[in-house]
């Protein structure tokens, strides 16, 4: 069965019906990230496709609100017309997951999809300032609002960001925006090994020049030689000045212009380098300075491809899908180095066999279960998508 409500009131009715029938729901937006998470197949689907439309856009307040099923592209083009943008540059999963469709703004919020600007402009959860959602009791709930400074009550907004729908079906989300930078450029350093590359990225990020992208692509990832990349976005004069100052700190390199910068960071953010092959892809979050150690330890177990974003703190790994798809090894190395790992791309049978999201300590898992019960006591929404039992 497929529910596709046209309004929040209808959404409440759908949830009430599902609850009465004790029928769990798979929540679907644009369908581009269906292969994220543990494979689950609830008896019914709840689509947000008819909950569409921007409900508020105030360029002078740098805020946009839209119903959850609004295509992300619609929101992005609307605000781009006023030279504004979603600060966190959400990843488009379509290339990596070989999926089709149009991602929705609600999914960006629910899955907390951030991109390369995380290091300078915050994550999706940092820009998300308001949500409306329907909980498992079929109640329409709001948290946050349309103003960027708001500490009224518990922050359920952040809690919804990254809950993958398990704590409620989002009906409307509100994001704060930023002006789109007038100009962008990327400094490229060639031939650095991982450790020296992350060191260079750290020095760039530790400078006053507001590096908004810091990645390292080892040899063989997108090009023959290793490239260490630092992006500056600002007014044109400032970009020129800051690139000059930055090179005094990290060394001289070549400079990519606006267009080359845009396309390269799109590839990095979308993990395009690992698209279109049969390997599994892991996403590892750790401290930048320890990331090269992480990769070194992981490489001992077998061949893998990798690259770094977020100044080194975000590591993408591609490796064979054989056996446990590297899960045992990755989790062991995480335990040693610190951080967490998510299996972002893998065949469904693999995702059914191994933990997709980082297993949590018992004390934290207890809190997650209690929270799930407080929002969705009957486990109607995406049950088991993140963890067994929630």
């Amino acid at each position, binding site marked *: 069965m497929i529910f596709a409500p046209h309004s929040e009131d209808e959404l409440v009715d759908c949830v009430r019906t599902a609850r009465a029938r004790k029928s769990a729901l798979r929540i679907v937006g644009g369908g581009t990230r269906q292969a994220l998470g543990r494979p689950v197949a609830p008896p019914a689907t709840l689509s947000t496709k008819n909950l569409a439309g921007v409900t508020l856009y105030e360029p002078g307040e740098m805020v946009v609100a839209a119903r959850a099923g609004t295509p992300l592209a619609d929101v992005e083009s609307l605000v781009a017309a006023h030279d504004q943008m979603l600060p966190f540059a959400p990843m488009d999963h379509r290339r990596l997951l070989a999926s089709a469709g149009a991602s929705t703004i609600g999914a960006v919020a629910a899955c907390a999809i951030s991109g390369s600007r*995380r290091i300078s402009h915050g994550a999706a959860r940092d820009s998300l300032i308001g949500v409306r959602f329907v909980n498992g009791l079929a109640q329409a709930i709001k948290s946050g609002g349309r103003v960027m400074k708001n500490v009224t009550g518990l922050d359920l907004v952040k809690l919804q960001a990254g809950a993958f729908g398990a704590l409620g079906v989002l009906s409307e989300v509100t994001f704060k925006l930023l002006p789109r930078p007038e100009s962008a450029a990327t400094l490229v350093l060639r031939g650095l090994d991982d450790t020296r590359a992350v060191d260079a990225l750290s020095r760039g990020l530790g400078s006053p020049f507001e590096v908004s992208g810091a990645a390292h692509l080892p040899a063989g990832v997108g090009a023959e030689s290793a490239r260490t990349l630092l992006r500056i976005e600002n007014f044109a004069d400032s970009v020129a000045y800051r690139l000059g100052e930055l090179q005094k700190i990290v060394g001289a390199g070549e400079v990519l212009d606006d267009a080359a910068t845009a396309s390269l960071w799109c590839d990095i953010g979308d993990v395009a380098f690992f698209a279109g092959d049969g390997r599994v892809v892991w996403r590892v979050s750790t401290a930048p300075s320890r990331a090269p150690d992480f990769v070194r330890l992981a490489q001992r177990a077998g061949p893998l491809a990798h690259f770094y974003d977020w100044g080194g703190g975000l590591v993408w790994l591609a490796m064979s899908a054989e056996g446990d798809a590297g899960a045992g090894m990755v989790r062991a190395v995480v335990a040693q180095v610190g951080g967490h790992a998510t299996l972002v791309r893998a065949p469904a049978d693999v995702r059914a066999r191994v933990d997709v999201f980082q297993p949590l300590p018992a004390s934290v898992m207890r809190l997650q279960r209690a929270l799930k019960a407080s929002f969705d006591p009957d486990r109607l929404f995406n049950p088991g998508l993140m963890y067994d039992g929630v």
Partner: protein
Amino acid sequence: MSSIRFPAPDPAILARREEIVVGLARIVPPGCLVTGLDERRAFETDALTAYRSVPLAVVLPRSTQETAAVLRYCHGAGVKVTPRGAGTSLSGGAIPQEDSVVVALTKMTRVLDVDYANRVARVEAGVTNLGISDAVAADGFFYAPDPSSQLACTIGGNIGMNSGGAHCLKYGVTTNNVLGVTMVLIDGTIVEIGGDWLDAPGYDLLGLIVGHEGQLGIVTEATVRILRQAENARPVLFGFASSEAAGACVADIIAAGIVPVAIEFMDKLAIEICEAFARAGYPLDAGALLIVEVEGSEAEMDAQLRRIVAIAERHGVTTVRESKSAMETAAIWKGRKSAFGATGRVADYICMDGTAPLGQLARVLKRTDEIVRSYGLRVANVFHAGDGNMHPLIMYNVNDPAEQEKAEKAGEDILKFCVEVGGCLTGEHGVGVEKRDLMPRQFTVDDLAQQMRARAAFDETWLLNSAKVFPLEGRAA
């Protein structure tokens, strides 16, 4: 003031005070346990000084483990706990109940680790906000959120209230600058959330914990982001004939794609009060003042200021004065950051903290003035204009109960208006007890019940700071 009600203390707990003190004394040494009446009085209130009550005892734990042992004991004994940092809350977040034990983290003040390569610092929760910046300043770094009380307030308190500050227009508030915490739950369980990386697995517990107002547990350590200082910073004073002109100028600056580090607003009365205190060179002939701070190289600041001045001129700016020295910069910020203290020298006041959408600022300012005047009182406005977070300071005579009540009523009316125009009750001070009973103005019964259920997922006994945030009637477990 007496209009805010605290729950009646539980006589059974009060009767067991001796036993509870003995129990706590088994956990911490005498230097970490405050039991004398006079000494306990030091903890009877916070910066919302009109309300006070003396707690059963005060514990000053020295470690996460000690904090855990204290909470485990209180949980077992069924005793309420009031978490406390430096006690600078303006919303009464740290005011104890008579039948509660205060757990204050003022002995946990170490900066445990500074990691420049990863741009994070690990600190104990009792370290002051400014203490973090001071620890990294020599190396050119700082901790970004800068509440006016930053000299005294603790990072634990900042995390409790999701504190903001003048510079959060660019750098965000506490929740955007904390990456991990160690938190003790009411039953003594120690949980680690996040770390020195940029996101955490599972539901975003950290996002819920920041701003929890002492309801979910006691944060004992935190990993915070530290940022590199800008090359230079320059505040500029813009004087306008009226608040309306200043408010409209703010909206146009933002709409033009310029996001300064800070845009602070003062109305005429605030200018007079702050200038008398700080001698910062504020234009006394202006009806309203903006302090706009820009950052970068000298050339970059010049370029950004040219853009801002052009916009200000369209709104009839009457004075433009740039800081020409570090001393002038310090004086300009001293005037702004001591606005509350300076007002306190002139009159007693209550400070509101509502946020309004930027487009509604001028309207809210006008309405604020009308409301306060209708009660026969005066108001000074000083606030973070870039993000719409307003701080009307309603002046009254604390020794006149009728006037106190009027001031509180005026404050309520202003906050209700903020909510009406799309804003909220509190932008950075927290709900505490002060705005607890106004929560139904912003939230439905279902909204509040959902928040309370989420709260109870951490503390189903409701022992933690339980007089705060949620209206006492209709509480759901």
